């Protein structure tokens, strides 16, 4: 089982005719994702990787529905319209790969997601991958390397950095620990599924026994994750690493921002909150596999 992908879900790729769209369609198909086609307005009737291209998501639904998931590989300024188009056409999960999507567009996408009872991963995400199930986005790059990099197992990974998501899974694998699902929540200030939302999904996934979380300074996702643990919304072992210990504090928090952040967002604040909630903290990046093994041993959980 996987947290965001289902083998039977039909998936489309919006922007399948572009450079990234083509390459990653190949990856997704090769890794077992049920991609049924793509959408590029004005390019309907073309064929990419043997799959049909439609002019709109609604047309895709009519031709090959029900489509549950869409992966977006389109330029940032066009993402808002494409995302809302997918929601209105009944798509329940969209994966927004591009970065530099304007923040106000993301707020509008978020409002639309609530209205249509749908979810989005990203923006600025490599997506998610579950060994043996499939991949949404570009995690792993190619099917061949994805098979080489990721070993199936019981540990979930949730990360705010894309490269780090795959790297953690790879280094865990080298240490003999397989992964259930790996999720890159996205690198932008507002994301559709922040850490706590991903942890909730891992909580209800019977195949996930523990989760490794890569956090970063700024924002409140890690503190919110700690809160979720405190309120028993997440009860599995959590191993956390926070990046940016030595990074200079900038002006990213405005005065009004400080009022709702309440001193949150700092490296120390995140570490303290997670420690208090009972999470295991990896002191260095290199130590993540070692700490994970220790936690699994302590809890009597097998490592693959």
């Amino acid at each position, binding site marked *: 089982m996987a947290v965001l992908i289902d083998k039977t879900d039909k998936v489309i790729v919006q922007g399948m005719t572009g*450079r990234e769209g083509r390459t990653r369609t190949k990856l997704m198909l090769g890794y077992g994702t049920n991609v049924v086609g793509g959408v590029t307005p004005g390019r309907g009737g073309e064929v990419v990787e043997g799959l049909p291209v439609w002019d709109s998501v609604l047309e895709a639904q009519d031709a090959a529905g029900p489509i549950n998931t869409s992966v977006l590989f389109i330029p940032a300024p066009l993402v808002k319209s494409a995302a809302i188009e997918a929601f209105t056409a009944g798509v329940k999960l969209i994966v927004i790969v591009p970065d*530099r999507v304007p923040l*106000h567009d993301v707020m509008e996408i978020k409002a639309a997601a609530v209205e249509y009872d749908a979810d989005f991963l990203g923006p600025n995400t490599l997506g998610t991958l579950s060994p043996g199930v499939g991949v949404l986005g570009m995690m792993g790059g190619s099917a061949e390397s994805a098979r080489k990099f990721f070993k199936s197992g019981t540990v979930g990974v949730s990360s705010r*950095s894309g*490269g780090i998501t795959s790297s953690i899974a790879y280094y865990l694998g080298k240490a003999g620990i397989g992964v259930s699902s790996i999720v890159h929540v996205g690198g932008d*200030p507002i994301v559709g599924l922040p850490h706590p939302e991903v942890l909730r999904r891992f909580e209800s996934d019977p195949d996930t026994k523990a989760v490794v979380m890569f956090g970063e300074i700024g924002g409140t996702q890690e503190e919110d994750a700690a809160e979720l643990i405190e309120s028993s919304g997440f009860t599995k072992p959590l191993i956390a690493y926070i990046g940016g210990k030595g990074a200079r504090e900038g002006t990213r928090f405005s005065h009004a921002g400080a009022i*709702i952040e309440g001193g949150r967002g700092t490296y120390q604040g995140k570490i303290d909150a997670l420690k208090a909630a009972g999470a295991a903290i990896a002191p260095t990046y290199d130590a993540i596999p070692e700490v994970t093994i220790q936690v699994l041993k302590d809890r009597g959980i097998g490592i693959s």
Partner: protein
Amino acid sequence: MTLIVEAVGKREVEKYGIHVPRGFLVELPEGARKATEEIGGKVVIKAQVRTTGRAGQGLVGFADSPEDAARFAERMLGRIVKGFPVTQVLIEEFLDISREYFAGIITDTKEGRPLVIFSSRGGSGIEEIARDHPESVAKVHIDYTRGLRPFEARELARKTGLSGKEMVGMGAFLEKLYAAFIGVEARSLEVNPVVLTSDGRFVAADCHLTVDDYAVFRHPELDVEIARELGHPPTALEKSAYACEKDDYRGTFYFIQLESDVKKGEGWLGFHGSGGGGSMMSMDAVSDQGFKVADFCDTSGNPPASKVYRAGRIILAQSGIDGYFLSGSGVASQEQYHGARGLIKAFREEPLRIPAVIRLGGNREELAIEYLNRFCADLPVTVEAYGKDDKVTFCAERMRALIDEHTSPSDAELEAVKPLHNTDTPKLPYEFKTLTGKITFDHAKCAKCESKACIEACKPGILELNDKGAPALNISLDDAARGKCTECLACEAECFYSGETAVRIELPIPGLM
């Protein structure tokens, strides 16, 4: 996010019907004198710099006469505040204040919605107001699609004790402020204080606006030169980097010059990361080795080779660095050879004078490592290439060792380094534009070529031999220019290696050449 100076912020909110004090933006003391004469009476003089807490730094003054105003302006102009010179001061009418308030709208990133904050007490910092007088602060989250409704705006005022005309007037002010927040795509928009004048007008006495970097492209009215929070005025290299990046949506190229006064032998590195988390971690690793990074650069999100080439050139344009260090997370999804191709073009063109450690771990890393080894073998400096199974700490140690054993190459050695591109004037030029540059083949040289390596190297398959046996596009010039040519730089490299060096790929870097 980018902080917009007060005068520009006020100009913008005024477009949405918000009253601002009558004022003039001046650049000379003489202008301050004239402005004060024009306004008549007492004025406020405010330095236009991207900083907070100006009053405490002598950057806000009050004057009763044109002469005093000119003296204040003279004292402020030319001062350096947090690295930014004061080049403009704002001369404004002194408001007849009856009451002050705080009004702000921020992007609440946790909720993913705008948050409107109002306080019936203004002037001091909102944190202090909220701490000392919580009853005077009201907040409401706004559904983005629906916007701020008039009753919600009035309710914020009513909850903090306003009533009657004052409540209605403030409600209207907040509605306009919200419209401005949406209009300029702000990260935050704060007015502190909002002033109720004795003649009953609500006026924005100050304006603190930060905007979303990703949206600046659709707001030319904001005059943002570089949509990045640099903390200092953009340097020449940062301007070059931003010019390369702003219209090229393929992947990300982020560049900040952390130090411009860099001296050889002091352990400064040209730092090239890949991916936000991976870059952060890699920077920590070189810091642990006692290095300092002259810049922070991140190319990620599957950038084309052309973008990595430009990043490499810009990093190397910083004089005084002792080494070039590149590392990402270790297991990148994007094909790593694109980055390697960009680097070898930059390294040979420059040519590289310092040792380099390149950790391009991830998809197709073996090809990336092979490229670097093959094309850097004859350089008079050492370039070591590593992959995902080489820990970042180890790579940082290698950087240290290479710098320690490095001797500067001689001019003759450097001159012997041939760039990848054709440096002769083409006799039979065949050229086409790419998304950000131009490629020229010299078909006179191609006629002598036996390998035709460019054809096989062209992964998008847009090159084929024409009836004369020379490489030519099999797509239209327009398609090539629109991005069908992915600027992978393979044709130039392979032609150099096994052909006649007949290809020249020109990728301009504004400000650098």
